[in-house]
């Protein structure tokens, strides 16, 4: 089509005028939506979303309606019907048309069509890219998660099969497709978040699928592309998006009432999302803070501004009205110009009348708007009053509920008061105009519903709080356990160093015992003493450190690395309970660095395989024996701490069943003596005593009480060195008992004695010192 023909075509003119009319139509629709949202302030996000969506769909309807009217209605007679048939003011066909002021609607239509093509092709490219994400860079999620997704889909009532994929291209979780929906999770999300958090996110995505939000989003894209020039269209679109997310959040909270888990998941996802892909063109972000505030029931800080909004809505409506008046005027004038002169006078008269009528109806409309606004204002105010009253009572109720479980009588009283207040309010409404009364009754009904909701919410909050308390207790226990582990680990480091020194020293001792040369003997003794002193100093500083640390660190929670905090509870249990006494510091560090559950599973398998007495065999005697010991300890040694964590449990799990148990539970201080014939790395005839002074069943490993005589004590590092010392002391005729030290694994406490009188004690001490040891008197 040639440009001059297009510019004079009736379709182009009608399009241009319809576009101009659309300016005020969209503004009116936006104003109406704004008013509807104000009135429905307490309604669900689902209702608000539907209102916004209806408004959004009304936009193209209004536009096509106007276009049809302009093309086929009363004005059509005034316009030439076939292109090329010259209008009054166009020159003969063939000549280029002059720049006529009457062409401007056609010019507008031309620019608009260019814009629509640009926007729509961009949208199409975007859609193709999104659709390709269901195939590109994806891999099926683990079967376990597919299974869980099916359960969740049933709960959300999604009947179509949903595929769960991990994607390396998606930076946030996405729901794509309507007929064959898929959920894309960014790589690492399934393993990085806790199972509860992943479930909450999956429910959100399933809610999108159930609500067909993908289709809605495509339709929105089309509408935005068509009416790209109008800010009101973008605003309506933004409302649809916001309320859509709120509605899906509501579905999540309905199924998983602990909003904290979900809110934390959203915040974590937002934080972990990679910054590489900047989707800067999108302007619909920034509402995550509002959403989380809403999830956690925090009042928005801009609440005060709500007072002004009815006035704002009114102003919008007035602006729309003014725009109507302004736009009708030039449109009418251009019609007059386009009419042949013979009919011009007639048309002018008719149009004058039209204008008069339009003005009159506009006036009426304005008055009506003003009236409605006033009514709206009145209704809104009384609604606010009722709401404030109810909120006040609801707050009191919640407080009372939170205060104590014993406050239920008080609650009932308050509830009664609230209901009474409601009754009073109802009574005070009598005598108002019927319309207002009806609105207020509606408001009251809503308020009552809110009250009930608030009551229910406070009940669930109470339940949630006690659940959380239990969780926190568990977390505290775990933290304490980890603290203990950490202490052990550090101590192990220090001790390993000293072990070497001691080994050197005892080697030297043996050399010395066999050496003849006096000089050599003297230097060796010197070396031995030096090593012994170093060892004792180190052991003392260890004790000090441990004491200090337990004094200062106990109340604080140990800082934990992020991935450890996110570790699934099954792995945490394995690490801190199942193999707490087996795992080496190096293995522990390696395990903490693992990122996926698959890696952890493999690590655990290899962990046991390394300890398998017959490598490669399907059965692992070591693992079986270890779990048997764990089960035995938990069954028999449980007291204030689980059996595996008690002193007896620790010894039993580490060294197996003792060869002999002497039970003295009937004595004034209940006691158990355990004897091991041999412990690898510790020596022969190891005796350990457990005391239960509180008679609570908590037997503690302790040095013997002083009443049974005095002991001389030595510190040694478990392993070859300790074996050598106890061996040489025993061969020297000293009565020796070696204890593994409570709270300091890796260290052995060698007690020499008991000696009942000071003289024999001094003699033994002198003999020991002569042999190169530096014993101290036991407490």
């Amino acid at each position, binding site marked *: 089509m040639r440009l001059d023909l297009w510019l004079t075509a009736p379709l182009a003119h009608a399009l241009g005028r319809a576009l101009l009319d659309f300016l005020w139509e969209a503004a009116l629709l936006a104003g109406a939506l704004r008013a509807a949202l104000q009135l429905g302030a307490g309604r669900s996000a689902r209702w608000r979303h539907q209102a916004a969506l209806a408004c959004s769909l009304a936009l193209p309807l209004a536009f096509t309606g106007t276009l049809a009217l302009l093309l086929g209605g009363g004005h059509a007679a005034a316009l030439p019907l076939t292109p090329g048939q010259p209008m009054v003011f166009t020159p003969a066909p063939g000549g280029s048309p002059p720049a006529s002021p009457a062409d401007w609607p056609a010019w507008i239509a031309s620019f608009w069509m260019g814009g629509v093509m640009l926007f729509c092709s961009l949208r199409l490219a975007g859609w193709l890219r999104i659709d390709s994400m269901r195939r590109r860079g994806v891999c099926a999620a683990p079967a376990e998660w597919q299974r869980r997704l099916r359960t969740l889909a049933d709960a959300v009532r999604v009947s179509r099969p949903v595929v769960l994929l991990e994607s390396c291209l998606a930076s946030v979780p996405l729901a794509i497709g309507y007929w064959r929906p898929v959920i894309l999770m960014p790589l690492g999300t399934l393993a990085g978040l806790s199972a509860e958090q992943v479930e909450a996110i999956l429910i959100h995505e399933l809610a999108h699928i159930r609500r067909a939000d993908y289709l809605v989003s495509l339709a929105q894209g089309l509408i935005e592309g068509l009416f790209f020039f109008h800010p009101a269209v973008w605003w309506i679109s933004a409302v649809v998006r916001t309320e859509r997310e709120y509605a899906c959040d509501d579905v999540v909270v309905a199924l998983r009432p602990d909003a904290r888990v979900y*809110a934390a998941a959203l915040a974590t996802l937002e934080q972990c999302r990679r910054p590489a892909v900047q989707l800067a063109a999108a302007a619909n972000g920034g509402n995550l803070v509002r959403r989380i505030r809403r999830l956690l029931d925090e009042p928005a800080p801009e609440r005060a501004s709500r007072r002004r909004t009815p006035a704002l809505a009114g102003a919008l409506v007035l602006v729309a009205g003014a725009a109507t008046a302004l736009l009708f005027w030039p449109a009418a004038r251009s019609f007059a110009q386009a009419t042949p002169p013979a009919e011009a006078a007639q048309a002018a008269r008719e149009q004058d009348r039209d204008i008069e009528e339009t003005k009159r109806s506009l006036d009426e409309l304005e008055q009506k708007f003003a009236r409605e606004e006033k009514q709206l204002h009145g209704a809104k105010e009384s609604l606010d009053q009722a709401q404030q009253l109810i909120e006040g009572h609801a707050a009191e109720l919640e407080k009372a509920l939170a205060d104590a479980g014993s406050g239920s009588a008080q609650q009932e009283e308050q509830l009664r008061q609230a209901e009474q207040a409601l009754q009073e309010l109802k009574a005070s409404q009598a005598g108002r105009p019927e319309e207002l009364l009806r609105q207020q009754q509606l408001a009251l009904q809503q308020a009552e519903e809110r009250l009930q909701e608030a009551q229910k919410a406070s009940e669930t909050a109470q339940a949630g709080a006690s659940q959380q308390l239990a969780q926190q207790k568990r977390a505290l226990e775990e933290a304490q356990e980890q603290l203990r582990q950490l202490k052990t680990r550090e101590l192990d480091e220090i001790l390993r160093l000293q072990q070497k020194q001691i080994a050197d020293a005892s080697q030297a001792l043996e050399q010395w015992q066999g050496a003849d040369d006096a000089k050599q003997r003297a230097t060796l003794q010197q070396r031995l003493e030096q090593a012994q002193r170093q060892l004792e100093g180190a052991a003392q500083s260890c004790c000090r450190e441990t004491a200090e640390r337990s004094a200062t660190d106990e109340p604080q929670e140990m800082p934990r690395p992020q991935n450890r905090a996110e570790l699934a509870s099954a792995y945490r249990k394995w690490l801190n309970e199942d193999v707490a006494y087996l795992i080496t510091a190096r293995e522990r560090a390696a395990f903490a660095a693992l990122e996926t559950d698959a890696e952890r599973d493999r690590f655990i398998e290899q962990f046991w395989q390394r300890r398998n007495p017959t490598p490669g065999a399907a059965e692992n005697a070591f693992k079986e024996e270890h779990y048997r010991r764990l089960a035995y300890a938990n069954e028999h040694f449980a007291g204030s701490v689980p059996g595996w964590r008690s002193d007896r449990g620790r010894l039993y799990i580490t060294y197996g069943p003792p060869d002999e148990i002497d039970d003295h539970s009937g004595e004034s201080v209940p006691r158990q003596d355990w004897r091991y014939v041999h412990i690898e790395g510790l020596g022969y005839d190891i005796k350990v005593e457990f005391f239960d002074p509180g008679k609570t069943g908590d037997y503690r490993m302790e040095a013997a009480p002083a009443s049974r005589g005095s002991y001389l004590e030595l510190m040694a590092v478990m392993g070859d060195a300790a074996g050598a010392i106890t061996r040489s002391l025993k061969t020297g005729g000293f009565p020796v008992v070696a204890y593994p030290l409570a709270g300091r694994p890796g260290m052995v406490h060698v007690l020499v004695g008991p000696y009942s009188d000071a003289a024999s004690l001094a003699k033994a001490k002198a003999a020991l010192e002569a042999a190169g040891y530096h014993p101290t008197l036991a407490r």
Partner: protein
Amino acid sequence: MPKANELPRPTDAELEILTVLWSRGPATVREVHSTISSRRAAQYTTVLKLMQIMTEKGLVKRDEKQRAHVYSASRPREWTQRQLAGDLLERAFAGSASRLLVGALAARKASAAELAELRKLLERYEGERR
């Protein structure tokens, strides 16, 4: 083997294998094949051939210590994601696509200030519940 910063951009089929390796960790060809075929029909020999080619290109590393060779991605996924996102065409589409996306989070990344506010909100909420 080409230098690390000269690694070729993976094709779509290669990207799929890389995704499996990033998701599941080092794996044998059989494991990769079974994961892929749980989503779509795929020949074992095709996957094997692809992974051999990828080894030559340097996209994956092969551990030959065990009887069944274990493959792992030679670059972390963030690196390849950056490589893919750096594509101009990709970026032009991303802006337009973002308005059509439906998901738990907005298309625009939250600013540092917003993230800080989120943390504060959650902490305060925790404090109240305690």
